[in-house]
């Protein structure tokens, strides 16, 4: 089945069985491997992408459901070679250690800041509650998101 959508502001078309996971289409067909698989069951958030403004777990979504949608993956955050303020803040605050949860975290944080530019620490915690990190204890991730909100 031919499916068209917009990824990171570029129109793309893929030819894929409709029930394939969006995650696999992104990683295998489009070679956008920044989106990760940590569990394949909607629990870890490593596969988070933004679809029409909402964060979803791409391991749970069949690709056919995203026809016509606008999708943002971690590869779409930096613009014209400049890091997104969130990426810059993660870099400075130590928000990424092993980095495997980072794409998902950045995506969840981007979606949060897009609707709430000055979140409290509790709101940040809630926004990333679906994204597991085993390295950081979350402290520096929350610091980074707070910082990005303060100086965007």
């Amino acid at each position: 089945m031919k499916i068209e959508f917009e990824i990171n502001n570029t129109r793309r078309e893929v030819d894929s069985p409709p029930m394939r996971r969006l995650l696999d289409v992104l990683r295998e067909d489009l070679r956008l491997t920044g989106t990760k698989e940590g569990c394949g069951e909607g629990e870890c958030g490593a596969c988070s992408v933004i679809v029409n403004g909402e964060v979803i777990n791409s391991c749970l979504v069949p690709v056919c459901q995203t026809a016509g949608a606008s999708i943002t993956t971690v590869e779409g955050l930096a613009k014209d070679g400049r890091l997104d303020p969130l990426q810059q803040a993660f870099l400075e605050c130590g928000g990424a250690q092993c980095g495997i949860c980072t794409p998902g975290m950045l995506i969840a944080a981007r979606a949060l800041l897009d609707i709430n530019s000055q979140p409290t620490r509790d709101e940040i915690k809630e926004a990333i509650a679906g994204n597991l990190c085993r390295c950081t204890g979350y402290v520096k991730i929350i610091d980074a998101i707070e910082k990005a909100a303060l100086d965007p």
Partner: protein
Amino acid sequence: MAVGQNVLRKEGVEKLTGAARYIDDIALEGMLYGKTIRSPLARGLIKSISFDTDFDWSPITVCDWRDIPGENFVALIENDQPLLVARDVRHAEEPILLIAAESRTLVEEAASRIRIEYEELTPVLSIEESLDCREIIYGDDNVFKRFLIARGEVDEGINQGDLIIEGCYRVPHQEQLYIEPQGMIAIPTDTGMTVLGSMQCPYYVHKALKQLFNLSDEQAVVIQTMTGGGFGGKEEYPSMIACHAALLAHKAQRPVKIIYDRAEDIAATTKRHPGVIRHRTAVTRDGRLTASEIDIVLDGGAYVTLTPVVLSRAAIHALGPYRCENVRITARAVATNTPPNGAFRGFGAPQVAFAYEMQMEKIALRLGIDPLELRRINMLKEGDITATGQQLRWSVGSEDVLNAAVERSHFREKQEAIQIERASGDSRKRRGVGLSFFFHGAGFTGSGEAKMKARAGIEITDQGRARVLSSSTEIGQGTQTIFCQIVADELGIGFDDVEIEETDTSRVPDSGPTVASRTCMVVGRVIQLAAREIKEKIKRFAAELFGAPEIDLMEGRFVEGGKVLASFAEVAREYAAQNGKLKVESQYASPMGVEWDDDSYSGDAYPAFSWGAEVAEVEVDMDTFEVSVLKITTAQDIGRAIHPLLAAGQIEGGTLQAVGYGLTEELVWDQGRIVNRMLTNYIIPTSMDAPDMETVIVEKEYPHGPFGAKGVGELPMDGAAPAIAAAVLNATGAFVSEIPVTPERLMMIHEGTRRESNED
């Protein structure tokens, strides 16, 4: 200066843009997908294996144990763990067959067409079953390994005490749960085999691969890809997966990728050793320890693997950071028919730390002494002697960390506030505050580092930059960054002028495994020595070149008498033109006077210890018995912090893993198989569960570490579980002797305690 500064991490940007390539992000031309067929049974004999004849097997590569060219073992301490079962199944999820095909769907389809029949044998599934020896599964008593640490006269010590206090503590399995599951790609080459993958120890994999195909050092090539967390879980098991992928690749003569899914990763790979730890302590009424008898039993699982080393660390740390003249520590590791337990951050120490700290709580309770006071009375200080007879000569931050944790957390004020609150009536939500005090030996135990002789080096590139050559892996903790900082400062060049060679066994020397909090302290030191030698060489050369005997290298420039003569890069290029490539390799040597005796298990167990103290504040819901950790204040003496931000990140991350260990992480077993093998039912802390954390880094410099650094990786894993249990005790009066402190467990203890006090 770079050391002590929070420079941006070397591999930082690629991790943020999605450009970083982890093993599953790599796809090669003609690559097959491999899968492991495992035993559902904990113990038995394979009777037959049959392949569905209605299925087309021609596109499938199948390997069994007969495809192994050399010996059927994963190379580690003892050759006892097979790569593939020939006949005897010793634990559930043990690998039996390997299959590979062009697509994952096809591989799954093929897997469903294989039937294996077994003759079932009675499995040994717990420490108790192993110790009762009704079934013998290892040697003649199921014991893998024993240690004895003895000091002073225990009987005399008992006589000197006024009271004997006994305790029995239980600690569970714990899953590392790195977010990137394990994975490898093997590529057959003209001369041998190349393996890429997620790992902590490239040279372990290298050794296993060499043994498997009988290859030379050069024929086997192992390359670490960006690794999404390890925590010990990627210390030994990657060798198994690498060999599996290599067997398939060898047979198919095509690249083969094996990536575990989460369920397979949880079910089949190593866990933290569960254990039972008994304490018998003699104390005087004023709280001095006069004798301590400790017995440790750890469950090693089905094969020896790293168990003896874990047991050794457990035994050495068993008394805790306390003074006691008369000590007898007995330690055993036993075999069970469960997947082998292995390395996990802390490596035996978190287990015994829970036990020794809860024993201190018990003693405090029984003597009516304040728990903080009891720690102060008995804590090890500089000049004191540990259970193995090691005199603490340097870098002892014990008092500093305890004071810092107590002050920063307002421990005393909180204790009082809770007392007042308690007196003003019963609330359904009760607060509690508890503390723990702990230490962790950095580097390999005993003679380990002296035998390992870690190697690392530096070369000067054609561009005139310094490149670090080491097999120590970056697994998120910041290896690459701190190595570059050390080199920059020692050499006298900028941080940006130092780079890291790819972790590839054909390009970097064996620095030993990335484990045991040794990367910074031990390998960092070796790299510092290499940098020192490079500096000497190039300075001598520059002195001659410019006829400037007093020349020095500072911030990337050669200067004499305040005059800049040339840049480092210019001189380096000139050096290369005249003398060829400048490259130095150094080797670790134990500091003078650090001595250990393997036979009596005594002496300097570690060149230095890191020290920690932690205060946990909890709230317990007295209806549901749910425990929320509100705040953790932790003070840790790690020597000089090369990169304070990264060090704090280690402390925070390790502390949260320890919160999971203490509160929620528990495996459910059924007939030797793990039932909860998903993230929906194996519960690690989320951002909502994470307490507020305040971290204080104490820097008691270690004279033989690079710029005074010690280890930081594991210490943070030791303190949270006992601090939380102590806070729960403070909140509820329930004395917890087993973790995790689940609501069910807490309710049972609480009911029991209430009944006891009613009967009193």
